[in-house]
């Protein structure tokens, strides 16, 4: 059963993202633990895919580091299984890895067996190791029936993204499919830390204010002040990826010891979490639940 509801208690949730295996599995483990110590209420664990079409340069580079470090879906699941943290875990990946998991080979290679196993084996394995839900950036609600079905079977959540461009018609489709939380994309474009938060955020949040499911805002949040403003605008949670991956990248580029990078991540997590709480305390009436 998904533990995602527990991430959204009375306080705004802080949901950090990291690419698993960036730059290697043992470091990644310390980084995730540091984020939890820094106040994470839920973690989005990225399973890197070779064609990350929704990611900006920061996460693209993390994906390359992680893939060249040898991450595979099985290694990822093992990582999650070994992880000793007490917060819900969301698997963030692209659909082909979910669609193909359990295949013997990627190609037909003359044997003519080119069919894909579909999402069930992946979801089953994810449930076994303690994943609570999924975010799949290249899977819009229209194509998600198979994955939704598998998630229902294993009691996992399926998070969908609402973008600034999402039309009212599409909002209804998404509302029917979404569970766990709704990922409110703060701005158009790809992932990446930004110097400022976008005005589109408040507008997007207002459009889905009456949804039962918690609303977490992501794309570009990089400081405690951003976090505060996003919560003020009505978010139930903040999702931060690139600003944290930047710290990992800095560690790799400057050859910093893992513990030092973990410290920096913990500190950044505190800043973000405090930012989110700060505004929650100041304006409890905007707490939409």
């Amino acid at each position, binding site marked *: 059963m998904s533990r995602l509801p527990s991430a959204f208690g009375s306080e705004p949730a802080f949901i950090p993202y990291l690419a698993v295996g960036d730059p290697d599995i043992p470091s990644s483990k310390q980084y995730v633990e540091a984020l939890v110590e820094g106040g994470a209420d839920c973690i989005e664990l990225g399973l890197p895919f070779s064609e990350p079409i929704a990611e900006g340069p920061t996460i693209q580079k993390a994906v390359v580091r992680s893939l060249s470090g040898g991450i595979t879906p099985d290694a990822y699941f093992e990582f999650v299984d070994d992880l000793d943290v007490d917060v819900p875990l969301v698997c963030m990946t692209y659909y082909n*890895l979910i669609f193909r998991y359990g295949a013997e080979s990627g190609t*037909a290679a003359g044997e003519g067996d*080119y069919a894909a196993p579909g999402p069930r084996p992946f979801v089953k394995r994810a449930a076994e190791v303690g994943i609570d839900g999924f975010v799949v950036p*290249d899977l819009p609600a229209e194509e998600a029936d198979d994955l939704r079905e598998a998630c229902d079977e294993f009691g996992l959540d399926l998070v969908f993204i609402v973008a600034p461009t999402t*039309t009212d018609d599409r909002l209804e489709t998404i509302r029917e499919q979404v569970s766990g939380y709704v990922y409110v994309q703060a701005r158009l474009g790809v992932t990446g830390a930004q110097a400022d938060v976008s005005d589109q955020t408040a507008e997007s949040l207002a459009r889905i204010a009456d949804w039962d499911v918690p609303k977490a805002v992501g794309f570009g949040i990089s400081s405690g002040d951003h976090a505060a403003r996003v919560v003020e605008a009505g978010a139930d949670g903040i999702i931060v990826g690139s600003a944290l991956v930047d710290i990992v990248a800095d560690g790799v580029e400057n050859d910093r010891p893992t513990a030092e990078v973990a410290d920096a991540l913990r500190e950044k997590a505190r800043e973000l979490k405090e930012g989110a709480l700060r505004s929650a305390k100041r304006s409890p009436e905007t707490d939409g639940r």
Partner: protein
Amino acid sequence: MSSDSSADGKFGEYGGQYVPEALMPAIEELRDAYERYVLENEDGFVDEFRQRLGQFGGRPTPLQHAEHLSARYDREVYLKREDLVHGGAHKLNNALGQVLLAKYMGKERIVAETGAGQHGTATAMAAAHLDMPCEIYMGETDIQRQRPNVFRMRINGADLNPVTAGRGTLKEAISETMRDWATNVDDTHYVVGSVVGPAPFPEMVREFQSVISEEVRKQAKEQFGTLPDSVVACAGGGSNTMGAFAEFVDSEARSASGRSSGRSPREDDEDVSLLAVEAGGSSLAVDEEEGVAPNSASLSTGGQGVLHGARTKVLQDEWGQIVESHSVSAGLDYAGVGPELAYLVDEDRVSAVNVGDDAALEAFHRLSQEEGIIPALESSHALAYVEKVLGPERSAATGAADADAEVDDEAAELLGDRIVINLSGRGDKDLETVIEETDKRDIPNAPDMSEFAGGL
């Protein structure tokens, strides 16, 4: 548009719309515009498109009887001369259609990916012609091996964005263009360069390219009173392929594969064999450990997967990570293929075959010498396949391995007596690559390349 519109964007199980949510509204807007302007000729879109394709694009292109190839194979070989379309390839058919559509939609900016540079060139030309700002994404590797096209795009006024990710070829260029589109979707149209990507692109690009088979049908009837026995086309993403096949695929096979603009079934449709020739590269094997496929034969060797917005056949490792493809021809060097082609191959309506780098180079030199036409390396694959099945070497080799000979006989029969080869483009852009690659190997029919030492 209602959200169930994706149902008709499928070809059997293939196709669909696997894109970030931010792009879905743009794709729905595009589908709506495609239906109104392209399928229903609203505001006279189709009339203007056809008129510009004639005046600016130089259509119709000839269906030329290739005398020397015909004598060589003892069959009637015809070349559909898409190399004579303005810009030197079939790519303009689609680029002009989409840039014009973007204009009708009120978009203010064009982005496009390019592999060989042919689509980028065609888009840059169409954008200049229709006065639209244009940015092209191109992989670093491709920029190196397709210099002439880089210059042409710049000279036409397009901005060029080099893509350094991965191996720097078409796959990375598509991903990067999608990112641009996701960022600037309000005022920007992404001119996808082949029958790939999310619906409605595969269907729409096929519609724009189907002018090829429309002309072939008519020209065949005029020139020899009947339809050809076979149509042979190379397949990268498969746009020249689907363009050359579209009018020979009956609407029953089609009904599951998206709409066509009011075409009704024809009795003779099934009589025409359709052969999609993929790049066999240097080997058909995929090294899953290394994450590379020394070929681009997704139809022949790929597994079902989801890449760049569509479910199709892709070259991938055991986990579903997309592997790096290879072909001596930049335009075929792609790990995916159009979903409709994947469907038609599964349905046995289209035969997927392949030839390697060496055979393509040999075919390049042969056509240049024997017919006086320098073909694109992409198109050379189609030529090489006919040589592989009907060429003198094959005749000499038969009798050796009986099982192989039988397969060859079947292949020869499939081609029939009247063969149309879609000459999708001209080879000027490839000269540098050809000189270099020919020099590296033993291509028996090539002129002495040492006189070109140091390149062009």
